[in-house]
């Protein structure tokens, strides 16, 4: 087909509604709020939450995970729209809260291991943990990826990786509020490792998942 013919055929297609990345962020955040509200009606918060909130490390983790969830979702959607400015450093900025949470966990693991090595031992995986983690990961994760597909990501690896990071951060945040099992080994093995795995999957398969 000649380029002139192609241009003519493209020009004949119907009008479209403009869609900004801000709309996608708002829709995605809305879904997460609805999910959180729904879950809080089904499950009750952990019994020792008030006491835990007075611990600085626990509060710091909550803040870092909340920051990671919000910032990575925002950047994933921002990268979903073709622009040139800031595309190099936005993804790195979005990773900062997550890196902070990871360092906090690894720091706690090291301190616990050096002072009380008996506390660092494998803990069994419970069904509650898997169920909620997957619920918070898969439902928002798939929705975020679907929303990103409606845009035109020119950095699909980063967009998919950060969308899944946002979903896993939300999952971890919810589990911190619901689950009373927060041993350091459990958090590293069953929360941090799956998060890294899903982010890695997003980064590796982003191009295929968000193909347009």
């Amino acid at each position, binding site marked *: 087909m000649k380029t002139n013919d192609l241009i003519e055929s*493209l020009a004949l297609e119907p*009008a*479209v509604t*403009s869609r900004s990345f801000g709309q996608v962020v708002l829709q995605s955040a809305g879904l997460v709020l609805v999910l959180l509200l729904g879950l809080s009606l089904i499950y009750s918060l952990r019994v020792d939450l008030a006491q835990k909130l007075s611990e600085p490390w626990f509060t710091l983790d909550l803040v870092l995970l909340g920051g990671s969830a919000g910032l990575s979702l925002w950047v994933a959607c921002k990268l*979903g729209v*073709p622009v040139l400015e800031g595309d190099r450093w936005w993804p790195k900025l979005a990773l900062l809260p997550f890196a902070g949470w990871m360092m906090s966990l690894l720091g706690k693991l090291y301190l616990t291991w050096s002072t009380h090595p008996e506390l660092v031992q494998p803990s069994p995986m419970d069904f509650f943990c898997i169920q909620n983690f997957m619920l918070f990961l898969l439902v928002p994760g798939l929705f975020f990826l679907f929303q990103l597909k409606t845009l035109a990501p*020119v950095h699909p690896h980063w967009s998919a990786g950060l969308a899944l990071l946002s979903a896993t951060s939300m999952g971890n945040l919810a589990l911190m509020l619901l689950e009373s099992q927060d041993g350091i080994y459990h958090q590293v093995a069953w929360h941090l490792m799956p998060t890294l795995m899903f982010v890695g999957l997003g980064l590796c398969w982003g191009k295929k998942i968000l193909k347009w």
Partner: protein
Amino acid sequence: MALGQQGDSAAYTDLLGQCRLILRSMLQKKVSDEALLEDLIQEILISLHKARHTYQAERSFAPWLFSIANFRLQDHFRSHYRQLNFQQRFIETLELENQGEDVTFWAQRHEEVQEAILRLPEKQGRLVDLMKLQGYTAAEVAEQTGMSVSAVKVSVHRSLKELKKQIQGADENQ
């Protein structure tokens, strides 16, 4: 573009026509093959059309267009280089890679390739020299040598395989 989003086909045709000219001048320096250049322009125009709902009227159009063009161009080069075997890639990017840190290594490589080309039958060596070192297209070489385009492509492909075999054999011997 804002008019195009609202369904004004005349304005949209005009815009795509202008984009075509901009893309042509942008890509001409990077792609020498005319047919490939036209294919790439079409691919970018289709991408631009698919992404037209993401354009915001209050933002500048040029960064949006160039962002899509760069994305498609990178995609094209990535798949192009993946398809080429080591030897083809080596010859085509020889000059580029020579600007790297290990100039001596690449200079030796260049000599090895030139020696290997000299060992080829004269006609095949000339075709490789014209297409892969001097940068002529298959159509231009065909015109110069009086061969058909497909015969030129087949001959060059076989020569490159032979060159690859020779250089790999030399590497193994070392």
